[in-house]
Each structure stands twice: as C-alpha cells, then as structure tokens.
C-alpha cells in the first residue's frame, strides 16, 4: 500500500506539468485547447526517438518542449489569424499530430507506421536512468525526486514569466480581450505565445512520462485534457483561498499528486484500469457542475424557509 501511494505521488509530479499546461490555456487564456492530447504524445515521441538515436535525454526533453511550442503556435495561428473556432483549431492540430507522431517514431525504427516505441534497451539513458545511476535510488524514488524538482522549477519559471510585462498581457487577454486591444496589446500574438508555452509544458510532461515508463505510444494522450482538468479542479478546491499566483500553481501540482494517488489506490483495490477514464470524466463533470448544483440547492432551501433575508451577494453591476 505504501509503495502504491509513493508510486502515485511520483506519477503525480510527472503529470503535474500537463496540468500546469492545461491551466495556462484553460484558465489563464480561457481557451479550451484540445491540441494538448496530441502534444503530450508529441513530447513523448520526440524524446523517445531522440534518446533512441543516442541524444542526451535532457537535450531530448528540451526538443520535446520546443516541439510542443510549435504545435501550440499552430493551434494559435489557426484560431487567431485564420479565425477557426478554438475547439476546432485544437482538434485539427490534435488529429494532425496523430500522423506526425507516427512519423517521428517510425523515424527511430526505420519501419513505416510505428505506433509505439519501447525504450527498455535505453532505460539507462533516460533522465531517470541517469539519476538512478548517480544516486543509487530505486525507480520510484528517482521518479519522485526528478518529478518534484521539475515541478518546483516549473512553478518558479511560470511565476516569473506571468509576472513580466509580456506575461501580464497574456493573463489580461484571457480575462478581457477587448480591453487589451484598446491598450494596444496584440491579442493574436499573446494567444499564440500562451498556447505555445502551454503545449510546450504538456509536451515536456509527455517526454517525462515516456522516459519514466520507457515507452511511448501514439494513443497515450487520449483524455489528457480531462486528466489535466481533474488535477486543476482538485488543486483549486484545496487551495481555494490562495491569492498568490505561485501558491495557485503549487495547488495544481498538489492536485495532480492527489489525483494520481487516488488513481493508484483505486487500481490497487481492484478497479479495472480501463474504467479509469470514465471515473476521471465523472470527477470532472461533478466538479464543474458543483456551482450549478449549489445554486440549485440553495434556492430550494430559500423557497422552503420563511426568512426573506437576501444574502450578501457580490455584485458586479
């Protein structure tokens, strides 16, 4: 049981970058970006192929990040310059990436149509392999340490970036686009940059997942956005009162960890892993509909009680 939980925690850190990436598009930019399902696999494919070809895994992860940035920019350009609706723009990128990912993995093996890559032969040459060799830790603890360090580094970088002038304009774009244009902000550019960073992070997460499990598969991204959202929602619920941006990001990492621990425990107690996506989807559905359910219950209660005191409601108008 303890081992299951520890493994869940380490997975949580590795998947946290996905959640942070989804947070940038979904929350900061208010852009439901489905390309993330393709870019997580893109990151895994690029890293797997490059490590297969003998590249240093840190450098391979950097290329995975850059690949994700390009994928995000494509979605951004489709949505802004070509005015394709955001959901469709994301789907188009995701579908394109399916073929591209197979091409990338085929490039490693030399066989056309390679849909997955086994990295077991190269497991000593992944980031985790190198850390294990240097520290002598076992697989789970190596993953835990690498994941935690990466997550903390990413929180610092994102905190810094979204505090800069450019980062502020990206945050503002997601909140009030019309006002941004009135302030001379090119909202096409800010959206493209935001999506590039978001998908870069997601691809980086894919590269870490692939190196940790020594395996890359063209279907590994299915449901990634829902997993990301589940982590965000859990994190936001726990850190509800967090005002500081770094604390919010930290909350999402914790959300990702909790999600993975729950998943590990549920599978440990015998639920078939194929039901996982259904369970995740239900968690997200319930969490997203909670405000509506609350309002509904609240108004029912008020109808039944005789008191007519209007509660103090924050008005914007």
């Amino acid at each position, binding site marked *: 049981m303890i081992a299951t939980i520890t493994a869940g925690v380490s997975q949580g850190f590795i998947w946290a970058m996905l959640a942070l990436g989804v947070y940038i598009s979904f929350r900061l930019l208010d852009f439901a970006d489905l390309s993330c399902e393709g870019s997580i696999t893109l990151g895994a494919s690029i890293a797997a192929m490059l490590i297969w070809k003998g590249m240093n895994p840190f450098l391979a992860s950097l290329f995975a990040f850059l690949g994700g940035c390009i994928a995000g920019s494509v979605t951004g350009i489709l949505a802004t310059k070509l005015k394709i609706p955001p959901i469709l723009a994301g789907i188009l990128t995701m579908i394109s990436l399916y073929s591209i990912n197979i091409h990338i993995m085929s490039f490693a093996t030399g066989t056309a149509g390679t849909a997955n890559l086994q990295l077991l032969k190269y497991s000593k040459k992944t980031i985790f392999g190198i850390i294990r060799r240097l520290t002598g830790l076992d697989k789970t603890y190596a993953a835990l340490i690498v994941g935690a360090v990466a997550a903390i580094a990413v929180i610092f970088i994102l905190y810094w970036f979204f505090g800069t002038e450019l980062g502020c304009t990206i945050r503002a774009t997601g909140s009030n686009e019309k006002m941004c244009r009135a302030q001379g902000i090119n909202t096409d550019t800010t959206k493209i940059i935001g999506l590039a960073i978001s998908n870069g992070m997601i691809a980086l997460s894919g590269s870490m997942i692939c190196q940790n499990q020594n395996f890359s598969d063209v279907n590994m991204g299915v449901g990634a956005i829902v997993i990301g959202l589940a982590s965000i929602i859990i994190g936001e619920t726990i850190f509800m009162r967090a005002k500081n941006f770094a604390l919010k990001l930290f909350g999402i990492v914790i959300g990702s960890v909790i999600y993975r621990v729950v998943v590990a425990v549920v599978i440990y107690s015998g639920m078939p892993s194929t039901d996982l996506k259904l369970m995740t989807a239900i968690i997200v559905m319930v969490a997203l509909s909670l405000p509506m359910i609350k309002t509904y219950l609240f108004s029912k209660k008020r109808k039944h009680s005789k008191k007519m005191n209007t509660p103090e409601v924050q008005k914007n*108008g």
Partner: protein
Amino acid sequence: MADMEVMLSLSGVTKIFNAGTVNEKVAMNNLSLDVNKGDFITVIGGNGAGKSTLMNAVTGVFGIDEGKITLDGIDLTHMSENRRAKYFGRVFQDPMMGTVPNMEIQENLALAFRRGKSHGLKWGITAAEKRLYREQIARLGLGLEDRMSAKVGLLSGGQRQAITLLMSTLVRPKMLLLDEHTAALDPKTAEKVLALTDEIVGEDSLTTLMVTHNMRNAIDYGNRLIMMWDGKIILDISGEEKKKLTVEALLGAFSKASGSEFSNDRTLLS
C-alpha cells in the same frame, strides 16, 4: 476659427455593414469632421445614428470603406487597432469592458501605463509605479487606494468605470474617447463619474469626444456639440451658441435638420 490646429480629421468616411445583403446598413455616410485640439465635443443621436460606428472607425475596431482618417497629421486609415491604441484613451459603455476583472487594481493600471508600448520580459509592475498608482487612485476619493491589490472583478460598476477613466488618461493620450461611459451607471454614480471626467479633461485640456444619450449632459459638458442621424452629422454647434442651448431647442433642431419626427428616438434622447 481658422487658426485652430486640427487634432482629428475625418474626410468623406463611409462605412457600410453587410454590403450587398438585405441587412445592408450605411452606418457612416460620407461623413466629414474636424476636431480641433482641446475640443471637448459631446455627440448625441438616436439608436443606429452612427455614434458608436464613428468611435469604432476612429479607433480601428473595423476598417472603413471609403474616406480618410488622420490624427495630429498621422494617417490612421489603414493602421491596425492595436497600433492606434497608443494615441487614444477609451472608456466603453459597459463598466466591465475597460478593466481586467481577474487582475489587481494596480496590475490594471500597469497595463494602462504601458499602453501602446512593447511588452518585454521586465517585471510587469515596479515599486515606483505602485506608489504612483496609489496617488492616482486616491484622487478618485473612493477609498480604493488601500485596496490596490484587490481584484477589479470585486468592485462595483461605478468604481470600475472611475478606474477605467483614470487608466485611459494615465499616459496622456492624443484623444480621449468616451462611448456612453455613464449610461450603465445609476444616476448618482453617473454624476460622479461625469464630474471626474470634466475635471480630468479640463486639467490637461484633452481633446475629447463624448457620446451620450443624455441631452442635458450633452448641453452641460464640453465646448461643442454634434448631433448625428442616419450616418451623418446633422448639427454642429459650438461656443456661445452652445451655451444658450436648451433641450427643447435641440429637439426642434433635430426635427428640422433630419426632416423626421422625433417620436421614435425621444425616449432615448431625453
């Protein structure tokens, strides 16, 4: 007055929406207007008269079909909205529109402080700026100077509109454009925001266009009044003549100039 320097000039501007369809609407019809430096012009007209189209054409929300727009000698006709932004301070009708709800009061001011400038990787707000913003916000007399790091989304419409007004003039713009900026506020708040507008405009003798639905305000504020109807300017009154205006005279002038009854627009204009 021939010796006046022109700030904004529109010549022969035409804007047609949905051209060639049954919904075709000529929103600006060969419109020409010269705004002198320091002019505070109030703009009135019924629904669909072209007031907002005029504002949006000047700020570049959409391109125009014919004509030319220049500002202080700069040709704006084909310039994109975000490149024009550095010249204009804008306040919209919707109090939610001018500020970013998810960001702090001081962060909003920091965005306005950088209007039209490039946004790099320097920190988004400095300590010196924070002091400046605090002083500026204190001018509003709303007690917001102690809540500089509160999210703007938590404030009332009137408070947000006052902040928007401050933001629009934080860096002196070439022109201030107010598009019915008090229409969505309760009468008391509207009066406050109008008084603040008058103070800010007067202090810097900012060249200003203020669209309003309220005839009384159109007469009381500014040094010049224009009335629009059907995409054209049908009345342009300034100086002593404007000071003597009454609501009745304005209504009469409207029916005479437009050749139509006022009944449809009366509720909106009075």
